[in-house]
């Protein structure tokens, strides 16, 4: 594309709009990141009249904060496991639904629905599904798989599993649609040629479908990871971070530190840590997946 077209210099109106857009973005993204960085060096607390510069004390506290360690490891494990599960499920689901008859078109339409609901609704619907007198226990009892209702959200391990299941459900709506779109861009000639060469179904999947899906998978995995690192509203509605903080994501921990404990300074330090971790993961994974696209 050429950048020759820069025709009229004396045309400030469009430039003015651009300045407003850029200014708002700087004011509500860049400046807040800078302010967080600054506040993370203070002991700011809305209940105190003054805040003091305390250097790296908040960051030293990060190292010894076991609540942070467990929330960060919960967030990272969730991000990794749910991203893998949701993308594998999305690829499988997309291949299964990749037909054009009316019934398949309807199935493709409803597969996206979990993405349409707000996280708050998703959280509450599943809270009912997982309840002691909820439908999951009802079904499993009817099938004779369990004799006693299971407390899906009551014990730390099961609650983590339940949160992961719900997050994977929501994300699979997205990964399915992205991979369906990617599937439709694969030329049929590739499959025809492979058939002529005697390639079986698995070989065709392994060497054609999976590889040609790579650009779609890059987008899908990156967005899944970013979504998981931000995870807040599903957890707020489903478990509130419990039991015993087992499902407290780092985003939820920041919110609790800031709005329940009134520790703005320390919350900002945790926020800077989450930002650094998110940036490192997003950049390295995108880079890795892009390289994979080329290699494939």
């Amino acid at each position, binding site marked *: 594309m*050429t*950048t*020759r*077209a820069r025709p009229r210099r004396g*045309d400030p*109106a*469009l430039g003015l709009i651009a300045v*407003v*857009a*850029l200014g*708002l973005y700087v*004011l*509500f*993204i860049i400046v*807040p990141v800078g*302010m*967080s960085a600054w506040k993370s060096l203070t002991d700011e607390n809305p209940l105190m009249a003054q805040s003091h510069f305390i250097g790296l004390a908040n960051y030293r506290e990060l190292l010894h904060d076991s609540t942070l360690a467990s929330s960060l490891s919960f967030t990272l494990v969730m991000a990794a496991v749910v991203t893998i599960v949701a993308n594998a499920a999305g690829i499988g*689901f997309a291949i*299964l639904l*990749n*037909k*054009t008859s009316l019934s*398949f078109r309807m199935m493709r*339409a*409803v597969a*996206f629905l979990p993405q*349409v*609901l*707000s996280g*708050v*609704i*998703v959280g*509450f619907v599943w809270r*009912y*599904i997982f309840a002691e007198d*909820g*439908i999951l226990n*009802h079904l499993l009892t009817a099938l004779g798989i369990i004799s006693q209702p299971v407390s899906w959200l009551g014990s730390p391990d099961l609650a983590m599993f339940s949160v992961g299941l719900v997050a994977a*459900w929501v994300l699979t709506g997205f990964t399915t649609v992205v991979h369906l*779109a990617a599937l*439709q861009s694969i030329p049929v*000639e*590739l499959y025809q040629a*492979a*058939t002529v060469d005697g390639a079986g179904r698995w070989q065709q*999947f392994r060497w054609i*479908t999976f590889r040609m899906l790579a*650009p*779609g998978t890059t*987008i*899908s995995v990156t967005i899944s990871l970013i979504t998981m690192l*931000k995870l*807040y509203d599903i957890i*707020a509605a489903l478990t509130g971070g419990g039991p015993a903080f087992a499902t407290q994501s780092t*985003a939820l921990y920041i*919110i609790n530190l800031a709005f329940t404990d009134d520790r703005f300074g320390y919350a*900002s330090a945790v*926020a800077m840590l*989450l930002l650094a971790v*998110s940036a490192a993961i997003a950049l390295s994974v995108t880079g890795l997946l892009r390289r994979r696209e080329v290699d494939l």
Partner: protein
Amino acid sequence: MTVLTPQRRAAAPPTAPSQSTKRRPWASRGHLAAAALLTLAFVSPIYLTIVNAFKTQSQIIQNPEAPPAPPTLQNLTEALSRPDRIVQIGLMNSAVTVVASLVLIIPLGAAFSFWLTRRSAGFRRIVLAVFGAGLMIPPAVILLPTIRILSIVHLDHTYPGLVLSNVGGGYLSFAVFVYSGFLRSVPKEIIEAAAVDGAGSLRIWWKIVMPLLRPATATVTIFLSLWIWNDFMNPQFILGPLKGQTITTGLYLSLGQYSTNYAQLFGVMFLAAVIPVAGYLVLQKQFRAGLTAGASR
């Protein structure tokens, strides 16, 4: 990505024609059955939300999966006749927030992206990278400073403040990305011809670029409406509990009270979900066109 023949695309997964002609009817019936079963299981939570909204508490407890027989409208009428009118107020406040945010984001995002096409390639790359960061930053990281900034201009805990933070935040990033991607496919000649005719750039933008960008505007409108409608953290803390509720924060507050009254819970949830779900079902073609455009880039 290289596409050999864009006209002929694989509509179906690979089936070797020679070997499958014989088994085809059975294979394809099995395929349909498997797909249908899996899809049904996948959307069963949504099915539960719909059917249980029309059942009484005892019907829900005894047969949670059964269709409502006989259906009752009591849950919905009760949800709508709450003394705090939380459903009506929430729907209203969310609608106002979505419309006000979009009315600002769309022209700002489109004009900014158009302006960006007239800068040097290097400058454009840097700006787009900076805007890309906005899509990645977890909202919890910038929430406290955002409230602080809004309080400096006395807009904290107000709807204008919420709208302003929507306009300036990650949503603008998304709009700029969609518009910039789309503008790459707009032939420069059209715009240059208009410039030669002596039209000012604001006029070119409004009269020529905006109509060309209509599909991108559809994508931006659809996705941002959904995201802003469903947003929870920002209204929860930027508005705070005293300044009325959007549909998500109202839902969160009111459903906390119904931990075991499932009939009430599903009544309120149905009313809160019905608008985005209906909107999606009506506009699903545009939804997926937007996602597809995003994914192929």
